[in-house]
């Protein structure tokens, strides 16, 4: 009663043009509500959103701050007809709008809003697959030399001469991290060389699943190199998942075993410099590679060679010398040309026309 009186006294204007529609491209259960601000927006505390299932009993479902004209109701049940009202609120006074037209929420099968991503997936995936297919047909593919890669042979040779082990650190990455997978490829090749030269290999791990795979790869490399007898099952082992416990363990190994060469290849976090600087202090040659942007400065500073980002993936394909893997690099290169072209083209459109070019990349 008093509420109605106050309302008429103050004369707070309700919001207008309330519109409700099913939220697109979602799993259902969501309705978007939009309205035009009350003319008294500056005096309001907030807007309240009311919902009804039968057109008469409106129940409050949400509240949102002043100057806002959009609310997402995430509590709807699919298939039920709803109507919405929005109220202007000032202290205890409320002014309710006219109800919105009725609406139901439904789930979508395909996320249409992401169509730009599907297009990009098709272009990049297509290019990569096309060149892999080309490579399969035996076409020669040129890949430029990658500095850190050339050093691997020397590094293994040096360790053999000095009679010291090689330490291969895979980092903190999980098996699905691409840096880890690239690193495992390189590990396979390094293990083949240590098998040939009969050099001791040490591979401490931080992830349980990566550990199981690394073990398998090293074992296989020794078999392929014709030295299954030289394989030491304890050369690949698990250390710790905890970042700094892993680093402490590696620091211990570095200072006690004094490896001639350290490979620090994979995904790393802040422990990167702890490991790399300890390795540098022991006088080892260090070859690093990671796609962890934040750690690259430290590897570049403390290591002899650093494979930066994509160089790591390229190195892993290069070292395995498998044409199919090299073909993918060609596909990536053409993708880069496309990205550069898209950037230039979009900029030209964005500069000379009024077309909202950024919306294509939402």
């Amino acid at each position, binding site marked *: 009663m008093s509420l109605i009186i106050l309302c008429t006294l103050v004369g707070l204007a309700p919001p207008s043009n309330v519109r409700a529609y099913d939220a697109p491209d979602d799993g259902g259960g969501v309705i978007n509500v939009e309205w035009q601000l009350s003319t008294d927006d500056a005096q309001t505390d907030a807007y309240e959103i009311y919902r009804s299932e039968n057109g008469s009993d409106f129940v409050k479902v949400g509240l949102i701050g002043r100057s806002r004209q959009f609310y997402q109701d995430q509590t709807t049940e699919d298939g039920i007809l709803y109507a919405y009202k929005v109220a202007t609120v000032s202290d205890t006074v409320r002014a309710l709008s006219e109800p919105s037209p009725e609406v139901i929420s439904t789930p979508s099968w395909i996320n249409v809003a992401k169509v730009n991503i599907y297009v990009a997936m098709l272009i990049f995936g297509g290019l990569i697959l096309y060149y892999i297919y080309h490579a399969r047909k035996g076409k020669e593919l040129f890949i430029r030399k990658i500095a850190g890669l050339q050093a691997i042979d020397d590094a293994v040779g040096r360790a053999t001469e000095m009679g010291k082990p090689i330490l291969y650190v895979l980092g903190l990455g*999980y098996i699905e991290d691409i840096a880890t997978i690239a690193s495992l490829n390189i590990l396979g090749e390094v293990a083949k060389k240590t098998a040939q030269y009969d050099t001791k290999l040490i591979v401490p791990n931080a992830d349980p699943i990566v550990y199981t795979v690394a073990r398998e790869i090293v074992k296989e490399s020794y078999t392929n190199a014709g030295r299954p007898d030289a394989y030491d099952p304890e050369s690949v082992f698990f250390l*710790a*998942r905890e970042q*700094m416990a892993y680093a*402490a*363990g590696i620091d*211990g190994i570095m200072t*006690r075993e004094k490896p001639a060469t350290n490979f620090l290849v994979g995904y790393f976090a802040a422990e990167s410099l702890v490991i790399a600087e300890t390795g540098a202090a022991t006088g080892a040659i260090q070859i690093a590679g990671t796609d962890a942007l934040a750690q690259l400065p430290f590897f570049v500073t403390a290591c002899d060679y650093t494979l930066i980002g994509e160089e790591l993936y390229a190195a892993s394909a290069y070292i395995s010398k498998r044409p199919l893997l090299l073909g993918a690099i060609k596909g990536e290169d053409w993708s880069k040309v496309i990205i*550069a072209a898209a950037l230039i083209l979009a900029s030209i459109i*964005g500069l000379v026309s009024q077309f909202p070019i950024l919306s294509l990349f939402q």
Partner: protein
Amino acid sequence: MNISTDPWVWIASILSIAILSFLYKENPFFRAAEHIFLGVANGYLVTFYWHRILMPILFRPLFQQGDLLLIVPFIVGMLYLTRFIPRVSWLVRIPIAIYMGYWTGVLIPATIQAQIIKQVQGTILTAPNFQSWNAGTSGIAWSVIVFIGVLCTLSYFYFSREHKGVIGFTSRIGIVFVMIGFGAAFGYTVMARISLLIGKLQYLLGDWLGIIK
């Protein structure tokens, strides 16, 4: 001076000093701290996996609530243990394949969205991007510099040609951007790491020894 009487403060402090002693050289104290670190960190790992994963999402629902579907993860998970049985040890590849396959699949669209589309969007030369710097007309200059930097750096990662001619030139410009960035990031991180050292010293000198208050 009021030295701490809390045994845990003593344990934490002695372990900390053992780690810091590594700066002088590797020594028995560091070695002891390192092994305790590995032991306790893994003890915590076991606890975490048991109480937070295996019990609540596998054993309790499977054996107490009879959610029989969970037999699948149980059996597939057990395949990891075939590693110890040489004749069927290849079965370990099954859980690895499922785990790795799913996450790499998720990675493809997610990477394209967050790393390619978004980065390209932020680099395009157009009015809204100029304004996003909140720097007036200089915003145009900053956008142009970023635009050139991105293209040049990208050319450094072009592997199909030697770095000669045009690509040689652009990739060298790209490296300039990369190295300035690395140097800046290094210099910036110094402050953060010194702050952590200060924090450690404040703990040792304050909470433990009570020299500083």
